[in-house]
């Protein structure tokens, strides 16, 4: 029982990191990315390979993943952020599909669809963190650090500039803000933090393959952010909890034919997304929908 709860808590923690980091660009900077799972993947592959080949420490493996993820995010941000929002969506979609092809075809590094098996347990400053409880602690510590960092960033001049861009890009640039650089930097920060989740994921599952980083995963992270509430600190965390627990909870509904459980789960999940967007578009944790009405120019 406890093992199950801990395993879920770890996965919720990892997904919460993804949701929180995506929210940093989606909720605060208004950048809609469909490629978040790719940065998750880069973090996971980097950490896994460093740990398998060199027995790297968790901190080293994670830092390397963050660095690589950040560098690759520049490849997405630099060309795509010069143009309008829809194009970034399309470009991120392109990156998602291209990077996925690379993940599955660069077999000497990623193991392709077969994936990487036998990733050693995380080692933190020489100690093994293979015990699930300790690993949960590590996950929550990472989540907490990232939350603190993002809170600090959001409250800084950088965060204000991003929010200004989100609300009105033209006005922001008329106030001297270099929109492209600010957005690029935001994507960089978000992508590198997302790599932390990847590193945790790789060490926890001890197996990764390309199927954990597909488009559906990117969309699921978006769903977490939106269901929880964009532009709030805790909303995405709540969203991650709900998105991961709800399908599991649905399995307790009696009288469902077992062969249809999966489909019915997915339908309820879809319906929840639709209803929420109609009746509470700012998300569960966001500002009430009434205050959002009729404001923006």
């Amino acid at each position, binding site marked *: 029982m406890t093992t199950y709860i801990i395993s879920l808590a770890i996965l919720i923690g990892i997904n919460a990191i993804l949701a929180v980091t995506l929210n940093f660009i*989606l909720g605060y900077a208004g950048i*809609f990315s469909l490629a978040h799972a790719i940065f998750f993947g880069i973090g996971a592959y980097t950490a896994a390979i460093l740990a398998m080949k060199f027995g790297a420490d968790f901190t080293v493996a994670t830092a390397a993943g963050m660095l690589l993820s950040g560098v690759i995010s520049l490849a997405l941000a630099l*060309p*795509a952020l*010069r*143009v*309008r*929002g*829809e*194009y970034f*969506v*399309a*470009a991120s*979609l*392109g*990156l998602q*599909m*291209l990077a996925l*092809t690379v993940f599955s*075809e660069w077999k000497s590094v990623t193991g392709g669809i077969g994936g990487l098996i036998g990733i050693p347990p995380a080692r933190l400053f020489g100690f093994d963190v293979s015990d699930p409880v300790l690993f949960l602690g590590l996950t929550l510590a990472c989540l907490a650090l990232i939350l603190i960092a993002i809170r600090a960033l959001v409250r800084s001049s950088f965060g204000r500039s991003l929010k200004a861009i989100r609300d009105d*890009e*033209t006005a922001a*640039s008329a106030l001297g803000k270099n*929109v492209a650089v600010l957005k690029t930097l935001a994507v960089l920060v978000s992508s590198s933090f997302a790599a932390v989740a990847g590193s945790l994921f790789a060490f926890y599952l001890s197996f990764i393959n390309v199927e954990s980083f597909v*488009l559906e995963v990117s*969309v699921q992270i*978006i*769903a977490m952010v*939106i*269901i929880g509430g*964009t532009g709030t600190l805790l909303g995405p965390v709540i969203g991650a909890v709900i998105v991961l627990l709800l399908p599991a909870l649905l399995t307790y509904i009696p009288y469902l034919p077992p062969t*249809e459980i*999966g*489909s*019915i789960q*997915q*339908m309820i*999940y*879809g*319906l*929840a*997304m*639709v209803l*929420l*967007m*109609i009746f509470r*578009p700012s998300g569960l944790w966001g500002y009430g*929908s009434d205050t*959002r*009405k009729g*404001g*923006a120019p």
Partner: protein
Amino acid sequence: MVFLQLFVNGLQLGAIYALTAVGFSLIFGSTKIFHVAHGSAFAISGYIYWWLASKLNVPWPIATLAAVIAAAVFGLLMERFIYRPIQRHEASFFTVFIAAFGVQLIIQNLIGTVAGRGMETVTTPLSRSVEVMDGLFIAPIAAISIVVAIVVFWALNYFLGRTHIGIAMRALSENPDLVRVFGLDPGRVAQWVFVIGSAVVVPGAIFTAMTAGLNPAVGTHVMLVSLAATIVGGIGSVRGAAAGGMLLGLAENLAYWKLDPQWSEAVTFIVLFAFIIFRPSGFFGSPTTAK
């Protein structure tokens, strides 16, 4: 000869992609709604056609009509019960996206529950190729889909350029007030956009059912292709989306000429990237820097 064969294959696939993307482009161009559930209209109409034509042996014109009605009704319901209520609040891009994605999820699983989760095809002699010259195989459906695509675009162009409601649809994106000047209700025009935009997906769906086959998850791929074609062709341009779809279909097939087959899908997105970097306005789009 291989090149010619690949080119013909590309034309056929391109025609189907163009037919698929043009509705998405029309809807996105006119209403600025990112209609991710466009793939669901595709899946619904494809499955209805399959069910009627393959299972119940209904003659094809009736099955086609039923598919058109199903797609149009789906589009209408989406506009009326999903997008319009959302837009009463702040019509944020994200909210619309998620709601549409939720619909897509519902439809996909509903189809799986009702029609089964395997692949279904409409069996027809039209999809069987014949050797027209040495080594060049062409199926009747290739010619049919290209002709249908041309007819649909011609009709759509005529409709958008010459009819009252068509012009209003084009005006909707620029200036809803202008639509009022025409004496039309912008909401009503938006409904028409969804009806027309969803209905034009039907030929693409039927041809796909006859060639590659349908599965409940087909909508996702449709969405990807539509989006890519819309960007490549230029946002807001119907003929751009058609050209974009054709280009993607050709690129995907011609990739087999020099590249290993596993990279053919990636070619679509390389083309997309290239356009975003070098020509973000697409074939026919207006210049687009930050608004």
